């Protein structure tokens, strides 16, 4: 399996060169990008949702369920993104990430803790040298309505604070009004801002905010635009807009990364975020990852859940599998 470390050095502007080569043009414009994005196959809403419903009938039992629960836990970006967040709250979340279930040290840890940029250093300090990543939202999250210098400063600030991963938002207004080049350029610029002085770079997750894109066709196009611009991950949602992550939206994005790898040889990760609360939900996502993108994506390196409450339910189900008895919320720590 190919592995790409999150901190591989990227020469600046390589995305633009790659994009021009891929599209076969000497210069990128809105028109060029429109032609390419609108040349992608359409998505039939009913058919896509029927496919999801079909996969949703998969029944995951016993050993398979145990594996899936542990895998799901390890894929979580344990998240707090509230105006009321404090260093104390973040440290508490980090403690939970380090020891998800005090009754069972074998419990896997989540992949990352996801916070606002100003709390990235708090999280980094709390996590110490554990392999748990710090993910920070940036670029005037969640609306993205700020000038480019502000977005880039926001990004650099988070990287400087120790963020391993940056979760940026695209400019949905620009996307919906057809200013594809602006969206592309912003992603490229933010990616540059993810570079560290040592030549490594923070991993870039691009949030499409699919709830505002409204159609699956737009989700597919936004996915391709983000991948073209150099996203390491494409992520559904900020969690601040309803609907947040849905199975059909994630299906479309999984198809996109699958086809992108066939097209370019580059593997891109997927992160549904928001609204995923139960083990049953997580199982459905994992089945979809398995059967749409394929087993190569079934690791925290390539698939994440952006969630806060999900971990608790996964732990409850994990205890049930271990003990045979149904557990209760008093037996799972709050963060």
């Amino acid at each position, binding site marked *: *399996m190919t592995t790409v470390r999150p901190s591989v050095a990227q020469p600046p502007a390589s995305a633009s060169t790659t994009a021009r080569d891929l599209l076969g043009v000497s210069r990128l414009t809105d028109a060029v990008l429109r032609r390419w994005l609108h040349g992608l196959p*359409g*998505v039939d809403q009913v*058919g896509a949702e029927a*496919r999801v419903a079909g996969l949703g009938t*998969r029944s995951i*039992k*016993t050993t*398979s369920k145990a594996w899936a629960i542990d895998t799901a836990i390890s894929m979580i970006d344990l998240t707090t993104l509230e105006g009321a967040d404090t260093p104390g709250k973040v440290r508490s979340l980090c403690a939970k990430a380090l020891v998800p279930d005090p009754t069972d040290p074998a419990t896997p840890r989540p992949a990352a803790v996801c916070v606002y940029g100003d709390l990235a250093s708090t999280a980094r300090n709390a996590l110490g040298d554990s392999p748990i990543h710090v993910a920070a939202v940036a670029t005037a999250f969640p609306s993205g309505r700020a000038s480019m210098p502000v977005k880039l400063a926001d990004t650099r600030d988070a990287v400087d604070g120790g963020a391993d991963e940056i979760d940026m938002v695209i400019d949905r207004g620009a996307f919906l009004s057809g200013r594809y080049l602006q969206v592309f350029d912003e992603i490229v610029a933010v990616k540059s801002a993810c570079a560290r002085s040592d030549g490594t770079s923070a991993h870039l997750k691009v949030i499409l905010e699919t709830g505002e894109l409204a159609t699956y066709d737009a989700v597919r196009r936004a996915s391709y635009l983000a991948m073209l611009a150099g996203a390491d991950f494409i992520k559904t949602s900020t969690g601040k807009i309803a609907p947040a992550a849905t199975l059909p939206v994630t299906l479309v994005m999984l198809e996109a990364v699958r086809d992108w790898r066939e097209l370019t040889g580059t593997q891109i990760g997927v992160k549904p975020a928001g609204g995923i609360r139960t083990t049953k939900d997580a199982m459905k996502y994992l089945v979809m990852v398995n059967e749409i993108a394929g087993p190569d994506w079934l690791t925290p390196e390539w698939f994440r859940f952006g969630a806060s409450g999900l971990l608790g339910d996964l732990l409850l189900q994990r205890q049930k599998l271990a003990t045979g008895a149904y557990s209760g919320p008093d037996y799972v720590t709050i963060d």
Partner: protein
Amino acid sequence: MTRFDYAPAPESRAVVSIADSYGLFVNGEFVPASGAPFPTLNPATEEVLAQIGEATAADVDRAVAAARTAYQGVWGRLSGAERGKYLFRIARILQERAREFAVLETLDNGKPISESRDVDVPLAAAHFFYHAGWADKLGYAGLGGSPAKPPKPVGVVGQVIPWNFPLLMLAWKIAPALACGNTVVLKPAETTPLTALLFAQVCQEADLPPGVVNIVTGAGATGQALVEHPGIDKIAFTGSTEVGKLIARSVAGTRKRATLELGGKAANIVFEDAAIDQAVEGIVRGIFFNQGHVCCAGSRLLVQESIHDDLVRRLKRRLQTIRVGDPLDKNTDLGAINSATQLARVREMSAVGEAEGAERWSPACALPERGFWFAPTVFTGVSQAHRIAQEEIFGPVLSVITFRTPAEAVAKANNTPYGLSAGVWTEKGSRILWMADQLRAGVVWANTFNQFDPTSPFGGFKESGYGREGGRHGLEPYLTTGATL
């Protein structure tokens, strides 16, 4: 990395109890059959599930007499509203006992439990529910008569159904017949009689008057006795075109009516601008749903040449996730072939395809040792002249043919004696409507495939038979509409 291979998730058999042997259901009671008993197998294991009674001509005669008596004495005189209430009752019992029917269907037929649970049984209940509502509204159907003086039933109906959707086909036959005031004698397929016999229990549980529904089991001879019985006013048959023609000849020169739901060789046409991922799903649903044992299966994939390689690659990738195996496992996508006979036919036709020079491909999948199994199979490089492009295989075997223009797609799609169904995949609306006009098929699925609904008429053009089942149109064959015969 551990493979996410899903652990076995078998549905429990405990919900069904199968008797050692079964008789016939005549005049509201189970009675012994006069013929020699024959076994019905679980095609997934070859286990004998039960011994089934073979109805002789004399047995059929008794069943027809019971149906006639019930028609003249009770059912034909009952108000539409009361008839409807019996059908509503049956619909509800089917819903209540849905799991039992689903498991039994899967055991006897070999289809995946996910299909019997999510498609066959709910649709069967829906058919009774839909037709129940028609029973007292027939005068509004625009099929003769008036609200005050609704059209009349035809009388006693002989119904012969196939093994691919045993309970669902029973529902397609019995629900409209009863709603219109007819009584029936139904013969389920030789290899899948169990859900029909369980349905007989449902009739008892619903207190349906004796003789309104009679079920006679057996093979071809029993069916022939039923079709040729002079006391039958109408035949409703679903099955092969070959047998359909025999029935058409048998009723020739009589005043017996017939509706025939026969074979097909549907084209599933994919244009280069199609929503490609949904098209792949539609192809899979078209030919691998129910092991391809579907008369309207999309067995010919007509793909525009410009996307042939890409589509075939995507299709093959998709087929690698098809799960073949224990039909009772909730994660099984493709179950067992229904019988040894059918398996031999599928094998033979696939060998023919290879011999004709088409390229054969199947995903790697381990097939169980016992039982009747066939891996999903795709033939590429097929042309119209190949037998696998012309003859119905009735199995999980897809033939891929290319075309260049919409007109060529239509010409190839229509170039068959059949005309049951067709699929069209394109994002261009006007092309869909043009194609739908041109295709000589009774059902055209555009950007979808193998959808069924009680309100939607189903039936074919040309040698796929005549008459419609379902919807307002499906009532017509069961009514004397005021038009002279």
